[in-house]
């Protein structure tokens, strides 16, 4: 049973159903790995050992009685910005260090209803603002491939936990690349759904028009299974879309022959590491070998993604984070002198530097006299980027390119210069601005560090993106590689 951690979500669900091992055994093994790795990786903010074991025992009873759902007894972990009833939901921030959510996010409730067992809450950049997991109040997460390096962010805890096989799958959120970038840097598969596909209810907001949930797991097949259970319309989220969720698992084996792949010219720019590019191009050759057709496409507005994003996202965040005022929940300063003092010190003490930077940026771009020049203009450019994508998808079925410009970088390497850090999301932000489904799949190694191929599909074409990713994973084994220390 020592290889349980090497099994996929799909295999584990089948094994549990066949009673080859119990959920208590499996959950116990995962908890042991989490606890053993915590000092080195810091992937978790909260581990819910007792609750998880109790849920596992209940899952075993259910399975013994022949009951259960598609994920009954399978352990997972949630990024710590999904609200979990009775469990601290910190968002990686001192502001919410004391916040125990009174309700479950829809994603949490749906995965629980499918039978999944949450082992705890994974570390993340504070309020999902960061690309390296270094902005967390709980300290940085380390990359399982090399503890001197960052795992990426903001879903860095989820990515590291899956890469180190502490859990077979985890949830994440992606506002500008926060699932795909850490997935690429940690050598796993990350899938962000179409904006509106997964409910945002209970997902603490960073930038409401960009935030979208998704999955992190070793393979596209695992992501398909988890996403199928997470997705769907939710009347508590007005931006969720009421269209049926296809069976992503059943759609995985769609034939690839004839798939038209658009190569994003703008992504193969001077900022891209040449070795990284070589890996991506190797993966594209695999697709050609499987019968896909490659064409180069250009999205002329796409290079404006980063500046547009750093107007829109901070603007929304400055407003979304206003509720953290020390009045009703979260951090409150000691002995406030008056109301202004309460606001100033509670927020000053509760938020970290990166959050403050974005709140200030956002406040600035929405201010009288600047709104038109920044926010409004950014929204216009955003519409152009969206139009570029829509035009491209008239020619091709999916778009492909690198997920990030470089493999994982060293802790502290980019913290001094926010712009350098922001540029790490240069290839991922476009899909958020256009609300498109996008995945990152492992496609090789550069100096023993994993790199990712990004696959972007048209709106609600998750099945197509996942089946394309799955086709690569049937032909290659990059996604099965595990860091030696966690093998």
């Amino acid at each position, binding site marked *: 049973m020592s290889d349980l951690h090497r099994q996929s979500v799909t295999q584990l669900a089948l094994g549990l159903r066949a009673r080859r091992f119990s959920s208590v055994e499996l959950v116990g093994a995962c908890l042991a790995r989490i606890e053993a790795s915590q000092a080195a990786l810091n992937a978790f903010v909260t581990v819910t050992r007792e609750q998880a074991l109790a849920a596992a025992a209940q899952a075993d009873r259910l399975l013994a009685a022949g009951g259960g759902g598609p994920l009954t007894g399978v352990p997972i972990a949630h990024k710590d*910005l*999904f*609200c979990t009833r009775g469990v601290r*939901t910190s*968002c990686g921030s001192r502001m*919410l260090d004391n*916040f125990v*959510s*009174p*309700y479950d*996010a829809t994603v949490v409730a749906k995965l629980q209803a499918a039978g999944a067992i949450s082992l705890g809450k994974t570390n993340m950049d504070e309020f999902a603002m960061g690309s390296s997991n270094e902005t967390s109040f709980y300290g940085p997460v380390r990359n399982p491939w090399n503890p001197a390096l960052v795992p990426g962010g903001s879903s860095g805890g989820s990515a590291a936990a899956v890469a180190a096989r502490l859990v077979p799958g985890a949830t994440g959120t992606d506002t500008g690349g926060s699932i795909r970038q850490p997935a690429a840097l940690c050598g796993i598969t990350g899938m962000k759904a179409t904006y509106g596909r997964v409910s*945002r*209810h*209970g*997902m*603490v*907001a960073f*930038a*409401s*028009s960009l935030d979208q949930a998704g999955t992190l797991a070793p393979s596209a097949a695992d992501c398909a299974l988890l996403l199928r259970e997470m997705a769907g319309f939710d*009347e*508590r*989220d*007005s*931006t969720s879309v009421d269209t049926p969720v296809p069976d992503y698992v059943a759609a995985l084996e769609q034939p690839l022959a004839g798939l038209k792949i658009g190569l994003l010219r703008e992504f193969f720019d001077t900022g891209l590491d040449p070795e990284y590019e070589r890996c991506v191009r190797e993966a594209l050759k695999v697709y050609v070998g499987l019968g896909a057709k490659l064409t180069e496409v250009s999205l002329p507005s796409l290079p404006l993604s980063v500046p547009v994003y750093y107007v829109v996202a901070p*603007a*929304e965040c*400055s*407003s979304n*984070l*206003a*509720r*953290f*005022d020390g*009045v*009703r*929940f979260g951090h409150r300063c000691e002995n406030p002198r008056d*109301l202004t003092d309460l*606001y100033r010190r509670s927020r000053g003490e509760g938020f970290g530097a990166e959050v403050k930077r974005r709140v200030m940026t956002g*406040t600035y771009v*929405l*201010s*009288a006299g600047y*709104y038109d020049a920044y*926010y409004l203009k950014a929204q216009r450019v955003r519409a152009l980027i969206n139009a570029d994508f829509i035009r491209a998808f008239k020619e091709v079925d999916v778009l492909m390119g690198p997920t990030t410009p470089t493999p994982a970088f060293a802790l502290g390497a980019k913290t001094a210069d926010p712009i350098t850090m922001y540029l790490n999301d240069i290839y991922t932000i476009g899909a958020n601005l256009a609300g498109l489904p996008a995945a990152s799949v492992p496609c090789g190694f550069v100096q023993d560090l994993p790199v990712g191929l990004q696959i972007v599909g048209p709106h609600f074409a998750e099945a197509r993106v996942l089946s394309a990713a799955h086709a690569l994973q049937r032909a290659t084994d990059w996604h099965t590689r595990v860091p030696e220390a966690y093998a």
Partner: protein
Amino acid sequence: MSAWETVIGLEIHAQLATRSKIFSGSATAYGAPPNAQANLVDLGYPGVLPVLNAEAVRMAVKLGLAINAQVAPHSVFARKNYFYPDLPKGYQISQYELPIVAKGAIDIVLEDGTVKRVGITRAHLEEDAGKSLHEGLPGVTGIDLNRAGTALVEIVSEPELRSAKEAVAYMKKVHTLVRYLGICDGNMQEGSFRCDANVSVRRSGSEKFGTRAEIKNLNSFRFVERAINYEVERQIELLESGGQVVQETRLYDPDKGETRSMRSKEEANDYRYFPDPDLLPVALDAAFIESVRATLPELPDQKAARFSRDYGLSPYDAGVLTASRELADYYEAVVAAVPKEPKLAANWVMGELAAALNRDNLEIGSGKLPAPRLAGLLARIVDQTISGKIAKEVFEAMWAQGADADPIIESKGLRQITDSGAIERVIDEVMVKNPGQLAEYRAGKDKLFGFFVGQVMKATGGKANPAQLNELLKKKLSG
């Protein structure tokens, strides 16, 4: 003519009569214990999202149609950002650039009887804030979020009102309208209907607006009138003594009868409005708008015109009787029972009944004197069982006892005397008792006729039928 012209625009906040809040399922009933009607959405908890209440949209559309405004096929909710303890999210969800209703108008009747059309710039949907509580909480401030998230429609007039009286007439008209439409209970004590007044003055004949002050949160017609009058006087005095009006927000203190500065323009918030990404734009198609139009009741102006036309009432009386739907319904119920006497009914409803209600501080809908009961009294005037004068006495007894007219007329023996023989007998007695006056009358002093009428009425306790009495008396006196 005054050297100064007053310019007023009102922003009326009407709380919509939805059962639940505009973006959450919490109840909206007034008077619950603090925070008993605040769920996680109202509390602004992390991760929760607003979901628009369709009923609030329907009510705003109703208003738009009733004021002949443009109902926007596409309107957008925006966030108005500012920090305040009773504003849980740190922003209020409102509408800014694209409101649901734009460019309407309301007609008001001025004191001299002329009709003035007041333009309505816009009406938009928004959520209310909570309340800060200080009473009984020494050293701390309590927050009650029961009201937070309650649906409001803010109705913004053009700066076309020219006096406090006009402002009140306009506000009353809007009050009447929202209650007709059933979209607001109009309860001003509970804050369901309140307004902010933008007030400025300018030299008569000047085209340019003066600097305005905004008086916040006026929740009675009387306060609106007093606050505006005070503010106008203050501004004129300031300008005439060489000073300048500062653009600022002011509060009216009803105890002192004055307005006080709350914050200046420099201290004003930059609200950083932007479209709320949590809510989709509100898209309304023509079919929906028409389906709402089909639910519109007869509106006050239409009803008043019909009252004038069908009942022969003056525009003034028609206006008074249609000021509320309850009053108009009451009046029509009375008229239905005495269909030939709509003016008599109007006089009684606006006269005795209104006075009695006013005296006892009751509303028309209180049920104190149901319409059929008043109609029963009027029927006795019409069939000459009692005179109008006696009817007032009967009315007072009905009001006091909560009884019908007939038993009171019977038990008090107030039935009019219509028996000619009986009246003649009384006349004879009076003539015998007053031989001097009789002689003078017969000598040509016609004025004494009234004296004899009085004497007979006195002797019959006012019950003699006046027409019959006149006729018989004339005959007898002339011998």
